[in-house]
């Protein structure tokens, strides 16, 4: 009998710890933990912003869930606990708005551009999207991931068509870039910020502005948040001059 009580106690304790993080604490205080689901292209910049935010707000802590914006949106629709969503495109944010899952409105906090990256030293001398027609394997994001859609737009604008058999597809911008840094892909199209983060392991080719596509990053608090005040404070911090300076240091463009 003691065994049984112990077992049930154990199961109960497990259940309690998994739910415990979002109870108590009135929502008006700004202490506690929030979860921010953010596009993987924001990984480095948001990690730093998160640390700065925690320093500025003792008692508050931020955990991040980075991934492709479309996956994050699906997770939120299916009820994954998140307090803030930062998307790499307007479409996924809009779907959450339509579904009534946003707390308030979303605001654009940053922009990003596409760049072409190659192996260090650009051995195949790729200068434009047209040059990709003569290059071995090109790494692009999945067709329905924001960076993949932006890349398709850029190719359409340039009038370049690449055979699908020469395209390897990554689940997000990071995976797409990895096919060049830790793989045999000759070129990739990723965000300027990813190329910046990769440093000297790639060579970056800027695309002419007329052919480029601007990625827009909206952020919003979520309806399901147990700490809406803290979520809003985090968003205000991202949009503050300090937040914007951090974003710019990672290669993001200002929202205006």
């Amino acid at each position, binding site marked *: 009998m003691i*065994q*049984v009580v112990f*077992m049930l106690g154990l*199961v109960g304790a497990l259940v309690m710890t998994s739910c415990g993080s979002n109870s108590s604490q009135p929502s008006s205080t700004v202490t506690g933990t929030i979860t921010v689901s953010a596009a993987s292209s924001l990984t480095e910049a948001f990690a730093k912003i998160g640390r700065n935010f925690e320093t500025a707000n003792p008692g508050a802590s931020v955990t991040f869930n980075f991934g*492709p914006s*479309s*996956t994050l949106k*699906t997770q939120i629709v299916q009820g994954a606990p998140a307090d803030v969503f930062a998307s790499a495109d307007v479409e996924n944010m809009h779907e959450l708005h339509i579904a009534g899952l946003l707390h308030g409105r979303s605001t654009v906090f940053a922009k990003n551009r596409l760049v072409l990256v190659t192996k260090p030293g650009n051995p195949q001398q790729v200068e434009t999207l047209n040059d990709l027609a003569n290059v*071995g*394997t090109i*790494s692009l994001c*999945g*067709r*329905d*991931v924001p960076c993949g859609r932006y890349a398709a737009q850029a190719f359409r604008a340039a009038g370049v068509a690449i055979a*699908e*058999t*020469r*395209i*390897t*597809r*990554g*689940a997000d911008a990071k995976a797409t870039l990895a*096919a060049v840094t*830790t*793989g*045999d*892909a000759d070129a990739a199209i990723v965000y300027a910020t990813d190329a910046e983060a990769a440093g000297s392991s790639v060579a970056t080719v800027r695309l002419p502005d007329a052919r480029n596509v601007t990625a827009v990053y909206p952020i919003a608090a979520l309806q399901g948040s147990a700490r809406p005040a803290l979520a809003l404070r985090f968003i205000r911090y991202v949009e503050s001059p300090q937040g914007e300076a951090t974003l710019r240091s990672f290669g993001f463009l200002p929202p205006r």
Partner: protein
Amino acid sequence: MSSRKRSARRLPWAWMLVALIGFLFLVLPLVGLVLQVPWSSLGTDLSTPEATSALRLSLVCSLWATALAVLFGVPIAWVLARVEFPGRSIARALVLLPMVLPPVVGGVGLFYALGRDGLVGRYLHDWFDIQLTFSTTGAVVAETFVALPFLVITVEAALRSMDRRYEDAAATLGAKPFTVARRVTLPLILPGLIAGAALAWARALGEFGATITFAGNVQGRTQTTPLAVYLLLESRPELAIGLSVVLLAVCIAVLALLRDRWFAVG
């Protein structure tokens, strides 16, 4: 029969409860998956070009990987089971390592070994103009890497547990070592070999991490079913679920095939 009844009665019911929770934990995800299957559109979903090319590639690559696993795995198992040499346990650990290694790590290792600038890959590329990355052969290589240990461990166990007196008898009667191996040993370990090949095949069929890391994700070339499922979850979840269920059905069939070997209880 009576002894089994008695042992069942002696098991504390708290244990049975915990066992039940554990069992549900393993089975519920499968139930969840099957409940999501859009049965009415499954046929049309699975006949889209993405699905058919992924399923075809999965079949081709996994069968090649199984054949290579048998080709290299049986001799490896033989050496590990029968030849005494210093460092044998280390060699065995190295052979079995891909079973526990995260497949992505295996893929990165394969890239540095067999990629275009890899240890060996650079010579394949410079001398023979062979590039494994982004090729179907590369997908087969990645699947073989993760599947081979399953074949080795199964065949080695069969070799160790077989009755060696049959081999001794054949040798005494004048059979040459190769004849003994072919006429006596191989038939005796055949059930183990089949089980090992089936496990290796199932593992190759489900391979994801090493394939996407080493061979990339090129539709029609290296985008096998698990890779297609991963990307399609973004855009067409119903198709991703349809393909998942095909894999699930295949795995269940493999287990059913093996039930007499591994899963029969008394």
